[in-house]
């Protein structure tokens, strides 16, 4: 299933979790013992730091601890946000089928904003050339068939900002 709300109920952050998140928003320490290093900063034992991270990953608060590349620098210079106007009756089924295509990295249903925006299905497609992205979009179009009334591809021409999700200090939030 797609929409998960149940997990977030369980995923309440402890004060220690918040401190660990704040301490690693810029990144995990690049030292041999990252948990021990964080523990020294926060007055926790390395084992406990690790246990909190394992818990946060299990509950889904953290997807994973990973490298986030600048995809342009990896040669994936064409990042096409393909968007589709899919009939409301077909979108749940067709969205899942589009999302299952191996070359689709993100796939979501989102609201229309008529008259500027009639597209309700977003499928992100990456390629090393515009032709590659267009070929993949054609495969999506074939799959959607009559359920789709229109589509376009939005290419990104610059990354204006990419910092990842940040948690603000609690006292900053009103």
């Amino acid at each position, binding site marked *: 299933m797609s929409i998960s709300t149940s997990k977030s109920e369980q995923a309440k952050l402890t004060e220690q979790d918040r401190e660990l998140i704040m301490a690693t928003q810029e990144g995990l320490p*690049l030292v*041999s013992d990252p948990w021990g290093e964080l523990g020294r900063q926060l007055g926790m034992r390395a084992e406990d730091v690790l246990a909190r991270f394992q818990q946060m990953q299990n509950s889904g608060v953290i997807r994973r601890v990973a490298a986030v590349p600048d995809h342009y620098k*990896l040669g994936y210079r064409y990042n096409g946000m393909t968007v589709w106007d899919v009939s409301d009756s077909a979108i749940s089924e067709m969205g899942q089928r589009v999302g299952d295509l191996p070359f689709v990295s993100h796939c*979501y249903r989102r609201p229309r904003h008529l008259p500027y925006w009639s597209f309700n299905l977003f499928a992100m497609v990456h390629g090393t050339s515009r032709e590659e992205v267009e070929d993949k979009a054609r495969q999506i179009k074939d799959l959607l068939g009559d359920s789709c009334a229109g589509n376009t591809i939005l290419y990104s021409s610059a990354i204006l900002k990419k910092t990842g999700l*940040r948690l603000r200090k609690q006292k900053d939030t009103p």
Partner: protein
Amino acid sequence: MSATAEPKARRPMSDDKPVFTDIERAIINRLQYGLPLTLTPYQDVADELGITEQQLLDQLKALLANGTLTRFGPMFHAGEMGGGLTLAAMRIPAEDYDRVTEQVNSFPEVAHNYRREHELNMWFVLATETPEGIADTIARIEALTGYPVYNMPKEQEFHVNLHFEI
């Protein structure tokens, strides 16, 4: 093409073909999947890749310093943190694009911001601590920039798997 011409991009695309060493390639591919949550995570990945832990750490630092990696650390799932998350778009005329970019990027709630070739030419992800924070942030962005923000929260998620093999 959209009517907006070419205000200067922060990180324009380059035509250089990326060249990576075998070790860099192995590290980039491996670490997108996530660090094992073990007591010696870097040592364990280094063993897997057949390099030393020091080599792994040095290479990681270099890849971050030259911008190949934008970040190495926990990838938070704002929805699961009980916060708000949305995608939003704006229509900004060329003459105002730099100013509005500056203003939108100044919000800590803006996690990513992309210029895209469309009438809606600025697309950003907003992450807030509470679900109510989204509407509030959008109102403040509209007030500061003078342009409407089109909110496009996800209504259904079909797939998320961002991994770039090189």
